[in-house]
C-alpha cells in the first residue's frame, strides 16, 4: 500500500532527516529530538494527521543513545499511518511533549514516563498512571529484572 501522500511527505516533512523508509505500509521517519515537535506540527496542520495513536519507547540497552521513542499517527482523511522515531540518551531522556497539539498525548505520555522514565517536557502531569505513587524504577527498561520486588507499601487504614 503506497499512497501519493507518502512521496510528498518524504520530500517535504523533514528534508534534513534523510530518506524515510516504508515499513509494512507505514512511512517511518527517524528524527532528532529537536526536530520532533515541528515535524508533528506540520503533520497535523498541513497533512491532516488528526489522530495521535500511540507513543511508546524501545530500550536498546548497550547502544547510544539508549532509548528510542516511537510515535504513531493516523490520518482519517488520507487513511495512512506515519511512524516517527527519535533517540534520547540515558542521562537526559527528554523529548518535547505533544500535549499542546493532541489531547490524547497526556495519558499516553504518562504511561511512557511510567514504563521507561522518558520525560516529556511540557507535560506537567506525569503522575504514575498504570503504576502507583512510590513505585521505584521503570519496569519496561531492560535493566529492570522481571523478578524485582518493590518496597512494601505499608497498610493504609
Amino acid at each position: 500500500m503506497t499512497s501519493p501522500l507518502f512521496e510528498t511527505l518524504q520530500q517535504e516533512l523533514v528534508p534534513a532527516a534523510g530518506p524515510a523508509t516504508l515499513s509494512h505500509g507505514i512511512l517511518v521517519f527517524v528524527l532528532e529530538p529537536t526536530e520532533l515537535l515541528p515535524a508533528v506540527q506540520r503533520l497535523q496542520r498541513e497533512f491532516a494527521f488528526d489522530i495521535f495513536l500511540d507513543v511508546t519507547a524501545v530500550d536498546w540497552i548497550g547502544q547510544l543513545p539508549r532509548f528510542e521513542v516511537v510515535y504513531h499517527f493516523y490520518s482519517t482523511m488520507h487513511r495512512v499511518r506515519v511512524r516517527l522515531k527519535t533517540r534520547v540518551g540515558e542521562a537526559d531522556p527528554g523529548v518535547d511533549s505533544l500535549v499542546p497539539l493532541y489531547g490524547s498525548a497526556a495519558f499516553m505520555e504518562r504511561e511512557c514516563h511510567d514504563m521507561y522514565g522518558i520525560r516529556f517536557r511540557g507535560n506537567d502531569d506525569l503522575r504514575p498512571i498504570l503504576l502507583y505513587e512510590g513505585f521505584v524504577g521503570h519496569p519496561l527498561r531492560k535493566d529492570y529484572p522481571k523478578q524485582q520486588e518493590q518496597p512494601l507499601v505499608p497498610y493504609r487504614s
Partner: protein
Amino acid sequence: MDTPLPNPVRSIFEKSLRDDSVIVNIGPSHPATHGTVQIIAELDGERVLRTDVHCGYLHRGFEKECEDHTWHNLIPYVDRLNYVSALINDFAYCDGVEQLMGIQITPRCRYLRTLLSEYSRLVDHLTCLAAGLMELGAMTAFLYLVMIRDYMYEHLAALTGARVTYTYGRIGGLARDLPEGWLTRLEEIFVQYEDFVARVHALVDRNRIFIDRMRDVGVISTADALSYGYTGVILRSTGVPRDLRKDTPYLAYSELDFDVPVGIKGDNYDRYFVRMREMDESIYMMRQLMDMLPDGPINVDDRRCSFPDKPLVYSEIESLINHFKLVMDGPNVPAGEAYSAHESPNGELGFYLVSTGSGTPYKVHCRAPSFVHMGGAHLMLNGYQLADIVPTFGSINMIGGECDR
C-alpha cells in the same frame, strides 16, 4: 503520630474550586462501575464539576512478561487484554507477527478469522449493552442480551474449548477447523438473536426513562474525539464514518458489503444505537462469510511457525525436531518492527512489535483503545450529574484487562 503515608494515587485536585464543592472518590471498586477504575470527582451538589480518572488497578506487567516468552506463548496473554472479544486480540497480534515473517495466511483462515472477528464484536457489543442497560435498571433487556451472549459463548466453546479466553489464533493460522454442524448452529443463534434484539429495541429505544437518561448526556464533539485519540464506536457516535474495516481493509473486509452506522451528536444514546446497529451489520457480514467460506487448509505450510501434525511428530525425526525447536526456541521472526491495527469493538487495537530476529519478542506494545479512551473520559463526565457517570462510563466500555495491561 507517624507521618501520613503517601496516597497510592495523587489527585490533581489539591484545592477545591469553590468553598461549597465536595471532592469525592468513586472506586476503584464500586458496584456500579464494571471495571476497576478510580474517578476522583469534584461535585457541586449533584453536578460534576471536574473529574480525574485513574486506571492501573489491573496492571499486571503484560508487556514486560511478553519480553520473556516465545512469540507463540504470548497468545494466551493477548487473549486476556480485552477478555470480552479475545479473538480479535489473537488475530491482531498474529497479524503483526505474520507481517514481520512475511506470511500470507490461507484463504480459509482469512475468511474464518473475519467471521470470528465479527462474532467477537457481536459478543462484545452484547455484553456492553447488557451491562449498560442493567445499570439503568433494565433487567429484562439485560437478561435477554446476556442469554443470547451465553448461547454464543457455548457455541464458541464448541469450537475453541473455552468460553471466554480462547487462545484460538496461531501464527500463520488457527488452532483447529470448524467442528461438524457449527455453521448450522450459528444460523440458529442468529434467529434467536434477531428475536431477542427486536424485543430489546421495543423495550428500550423509545422508552421515556431511557431517553431521559441517555440523550444529551456524555456528549463529545468530533473535534474533541479526534484530538483525544478516540476511535471506534465513540468516534462514530459523533457522526464520523471512520472504521478501519472500511478505511484500511484487512482480512477479508474489502470483499464484504456492510454499512458503517454513525450517530448524530455523540451522546450516550448514540453510542447505544451505534452498537445496536453494528451488531446487525456484523450478522449481515457473517451471513455473507458463511457463503463465501472456501475449503482448504487453515494453517500455512511454513515450518518456521506452523506445528507439524502430531502423528508425524511421533513417527519421524524431522518433525520431532521441528516441534521441539518451535516449542523451546519459538518461531524465528526476522528482525524488524511492525504495527498491526485491527478494528476492535472499542476502537483501534494496535500491536507494535519489535523483533531482533530471535524466538522471543524484543518489545510488544499494545495500543489499547480503552486506555486512550480513559484519557478523555473527563470530557464526557464533567458538567453532568453524578448519577450520569454510571451510564456514560458504561457506554465508553472500558475493559480493565486491556486498559491496564
